[in-house]
């Protein structure tokens, strides 16, 4: 248990708030996809820190799943943006 985990988690919480603000604010679909991609990375970092804090493997499983989901999400959104452009 180290003292650095709490300030690191606070910084990650701040980063998550800033990222969510980017998603909520009026911006293009691509910007939102990029921001959501960043948010999954931030949550992965928090899960890794939480896993080392609790010495618990369950959070690592969650981080693996989140990484895969984040990849599939950004690829799907990218394909959606491409297909929407083709229609116009």
């Amino acid at each position, binding site marked *: 248990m180290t003292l650095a985990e709490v300030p690191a988690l606070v910084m990650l919480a701040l*980063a998550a708030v800033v990222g969510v603000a980017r998603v909520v604010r009026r911006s293009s679909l691509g910007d939102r996809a990029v921001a959501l991609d960043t948010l999954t990375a931030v949550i*992965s970092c928090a899960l*890794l820190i939480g896993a*080392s804090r609790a010495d618990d493997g369950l959070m690592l499983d969650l981080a693996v799943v989140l990484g895969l989901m984040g990849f599939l999400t950004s690829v799907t959104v990218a394909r959606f943006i491409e297909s929407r452009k083709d229609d116009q």
Partner: protein
Amino acid sequence: MSDILGSAVEVLSAACFIAGALLALIGTLGLHRLADTRSRMHAATKPATLGVALCALGAALQLSSTSDVTKVVVIVVLQLVTSPIGAHMLGRAVGNK
């Protein structure tokens, strides 16, 4: 001796956590500050690769069981392989307007 080594590992892992979290914060701030989608993507890549890798290194130094450390390695490899692919596809989709 092992006491000194143990505290050195703790300090190293703490530094990794702080650096990773700081990168995440700077990356999300960059999402607001930078001008267009591709520049924002450039800001977003730092927490996605180096941030996660640093947090994973810090966690791997602290975790006690070998299977947990293996999972951490899987997370980092997955992130390093998938994040450029996703960014490439998004960049191509956003770029050709």
